[in-house]
């Protein structure tokens, strides 16, 4: 495969232009610019809030200099709290083309849309010559998430992704799994896989934090559809979700926006630090996907039993269907039919290998199903985090 060489040394598998709005008031203008561009590789992202938030700024910066991003158009209303200058500076420093349009200074809606469409076209031409360099599977950052889980998820798609993660870690790729709220009940077995005892303790503390946070919220990370699909308790769902992580040692804990310092398997702690301030840790699956991408994920493996259809802006989503009945109902939304495992028509290892092959194909330019259907969901909301402690990244602490 050939990657797009970026100035920070990372390589991208796509070369998209993101148009980002910095407050809901600029959303319509940004959307019209993207629509008018009529290009699958021009993506809309944004932040709806008017009040500034460190997490959101850091997330947005990381997303805008993601290796899959070639250029950035920032759309600001003008009076919102988001630090547009700081975002613009980070993108400019990365060597990517960037332009900021402030609606209040550009004469309003129509003239900003016109300026935006022109800016995207100019950028498109400018990034056409980004150097392509050879790229190996070991250079990929692959994330996983589950959504619309049911009783089949933990039997087929999730353990098959676990098998794929083991293959990836073995060849030297970087893998990220997440949602500590969906790992409640798995803390001890997970801690036993940590590369150091101190990291094991940090993993348990992470899950405790999630349990505390969700208890205050009054809900676990459990949707009515999970119960319709046969999952009865949070810990049952957790055991199924946990299977996505495979059997490799856990190399570290990262937080949203942290790029893993080396290859291996990482747990992304998505639950905010401190007392709950801004509501649920992640209000839907795409909030998690955006965080995984901000950590550098080139591709997200999305397992589903009930039948989620989402994709994502910036990085392709590969959909792995756990439930054979769901696959029959909505085959056009699925990349991989893992429900065959339940029927005895395929093994976990075989499907794990299929997912691995699909990752290589999508990294080489093949569109995933959700990507081809134009799914580019994105959401970013308020959160608050402390940096990870020294026990969380033993390799980095050791080399420092």
């Amino acid at each position: 495969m050939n990657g797009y060489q970026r100035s920070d040394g990372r390589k991208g598998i796509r070369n998209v232009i993101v148009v980002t709005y910095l407050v809901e008031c600029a959303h319509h203008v940004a959307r019209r610019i993207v629509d008018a561009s009529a290009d699958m590789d021009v993506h809309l992202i944004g932040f709806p809030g008017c009040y500034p938030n460190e997490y959101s700024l850091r997330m947005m910066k990381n997303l805008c200099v993601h290796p899959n991003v070639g250029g950035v158009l920032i759309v600001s209303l003008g009076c919102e709290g988001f630090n547009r200058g700081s975002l613009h500076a980070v993108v400019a420093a990365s060597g990517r083309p960037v332009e900021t349009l402030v609606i209040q200074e550009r004469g309003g809606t129509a003239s900003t849309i016109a300026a935006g469409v022109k800016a995207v076209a100019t950028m498109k031409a400018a990034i056409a010559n980004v150097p392509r360099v050879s790229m190996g599977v070991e250079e990929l950052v692959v994330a996983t998430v589950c959504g619309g889980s049911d009783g089949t998820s933990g039997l087929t798609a999730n353990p098959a992704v676990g098998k794929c993660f083991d293959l990836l870690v073995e060849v030297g790729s970087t893998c990220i799994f997440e949602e500590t709220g969906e790992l409640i009940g798995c803390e001890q077995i997970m801690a036993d896989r940590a590369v150091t005892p101190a990291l094991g303790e940090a993993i348990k503390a992470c899950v405790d934090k999630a349990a505390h946070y969700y208890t205050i919220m009054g809900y676990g990370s459990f949707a009515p559809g999970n119960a319709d699909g046969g999952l009865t308790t949070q810990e049952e769902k957790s055991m199924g979700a946990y299977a996505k992580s495979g059997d490799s040692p856990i190399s570290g804990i990262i937080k949203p926006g942290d790029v893993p310092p080396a290859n291996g398997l990482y747990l992304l702690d998505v639950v905010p630090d401190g007392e709950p301030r801004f509501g649920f840790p992640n209000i839907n699956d795409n909030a998690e996907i955006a965080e995984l991408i901000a950590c550098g994920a080139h591709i997200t493996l999305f397992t589903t039993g009930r039948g989620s259809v989402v994709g994502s802006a910036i990085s392709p989503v590969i959909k792995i269907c756990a439930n054979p009945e769901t696959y029959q109902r909505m085959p056009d939304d699925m990349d991989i039919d893992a429900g065959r495992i339940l029927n005895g028509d395929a093994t976990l290892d075989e499907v794990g290998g299929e997912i691995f092959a699909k990752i290589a194909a999508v990294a080489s330019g093949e569109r995933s199903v959700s990507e081809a259907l134009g799914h580019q969901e994105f959401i970013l909301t308020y959160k608050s985090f402390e940096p990870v402690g020294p026990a969380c990244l033993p390799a980095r602490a050791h080399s420092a």
Partner: protein
Amino acid sequence: MNQKDASPFIQLHDKDNVLPCRRKIHAGDTLVIDGKTIAAPGDIDVGHKLARTDLRPGDVVLKYGVPIGSITQATRIGEHVHTHNMKSDYIAITTRQSTGQEAKSS
């Protein structure tokens, strides 16, 4: 292996006292559980669980060989094990059903 030949449920771990279904089970279907042949007491959907043995309130439910909650109502072998007779030992879940629905089913 074709699904028609295989058992409609899977045992994931020796210690487990619930068995997830690989395909829909209909009331009256013949089930062979640990050598014991019974008629399925009710319908159970794919991905849902049935009781491997008679279960009593307070029994810990084991799947994948690990605890996934506990039994709240006496459950006979072959019966559906779900939110009506089992609860989390960590954190309550929410369902879409209204309280009216819950009253109807209890």
